[in-house]
């Protein structure tokens, strides 16, 4: 009996492997697709995106486990075509495992966790007409240039003993 990947004897394993790939990719791709800036978001789509983002790290690991087992099964039983399929199928699953642990929004807008400061009189990097977000807590006054906050989106700080998240 030839051991071709198209052999009826092995196609269920190949289909199962492709299903594992589809699940892993869908779990990470659907939220990305939903959370595009260029489209509107419905409440139901946001809820689905949230649920998928939550389960993605575990779900992609489970999918990777299945995919490894199935790929091993195909590797042992097939020649080059089946082996190529097995290896190729593992790549998107591994990518999904990795991506589920990334925050791709912060690739473009890096958060600022440990901000540095200049005294007001020495802040030559701000123009007089530049807008700033200004806060005063317990007598401590801090200005956050809007352009910088817009770049980071999220700036964390402690002012007058109060931890703040500054957003724009």
């Amino acid at each position, binding site marked *: 009996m030839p051991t071709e990947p198209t052999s009826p004897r092995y196609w269920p394993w190949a289909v199962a492997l492709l299903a594992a790939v589809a699940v892993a990719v869908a779990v990470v791709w659907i939220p990305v697709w939903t959370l595009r*800036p260029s489209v509107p978001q419905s409440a139901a789509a946001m809820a689905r995106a949230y649920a998928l983002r939550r389960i993605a790290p575990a779900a992609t690991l489970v999918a990777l486990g299945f995919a490894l087992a199935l790929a091993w099964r195909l590797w042992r039983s097939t020649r080059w075509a089946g082996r190529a399929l097995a290896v190729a199928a593992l790549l998107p699953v591994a990518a999904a495992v990795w991506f589920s642990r990334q925050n791709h929004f912060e690739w473009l807008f890096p958060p600022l966790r440990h901000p540095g400061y200049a005294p*007001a009189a020495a802040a030559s990097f701000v123009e*007089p007409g530049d807008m*700033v*977000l200004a*806060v005063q807590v317990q007598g401590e006054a*801090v*200005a956050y240039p809007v352009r910088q906050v817009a770049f980071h989106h*999220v700036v964390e700080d402690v002012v007058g003993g109060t*931890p703040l998240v500054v957003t724009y």
Partner: protein
Amino acid sequence: MWDEQLRGRRLRFHLCGINNQNFVMCDEETGSWWQQVTGEAFAGPLRGSRLRLVFTDEVAFAIWRREHPGGRVLRPASPAWRSWSADWEAKIGRLPVVAGVPGADGRGPLPPRTVVLGLELRGAARAYPVESLRRQGAIVDDVGGQGVVILVGDDGRSLRAFESTLDGRRVPFFVKLRSSPGPAGSPAAAPSAAAVPASTAQPAPLASADPAAPRRWLDGASGSEWDFQGRAVAGPWRGRQLVPLPAGKDYWFDWWTYHPRTTVYLAAGGGAGDGG
């Protein structure tokens, strides 16, 4: 700007997504998703929780520095932030609003990307188109039964809102005009001042952004003189402080999304239109 403490626990926030053009934060501790503009969690274990708003001003740096010479300023973390171009606001302002986003369909009294100053008081909301405020120096209004006054700073872009009630009565405010703000010591700088009703006040010349001559206001009850921080600096009420009101800038479509019953201040008619 939000207080990161919730029921005694500090949360650490990240940018985690976008929801109809307004960004979503998530906290490290629970993974809940929060709407940046409302400070409310809408998904996850903390769903329904609200962060405490920390009072914030959005003003020109020159004005802030004049008021807080001992303050500190966020320093750029890396050269990368300069990739965020200086005219990013204008660029975003030219972007079309995504079809299907609430408030983006062109209904209502304002174009979707009109920048508004939003006030929310006693369950009522009102949006003030920033461009229409620029041409004025003070706007006296009523929101939810509360008398308010919006002061427009030297630059025409810095805005602050205060309660206009003093000693139980609503007080009108007027820009104190200078005939010629010229440089200090100039013989042309005649110290004559005139008060004009807020609705007809003209923008002060840019020269008044001179730190030596910040814009001032007069109240119509006592004639006291007020600065941009809402403090009476001269006159019978000297030393009094107006109660500041939280007011944030937003795009009209976004403000409308989160305040569907908002009204709109229309300077031309001098009144408020129905935004719904």
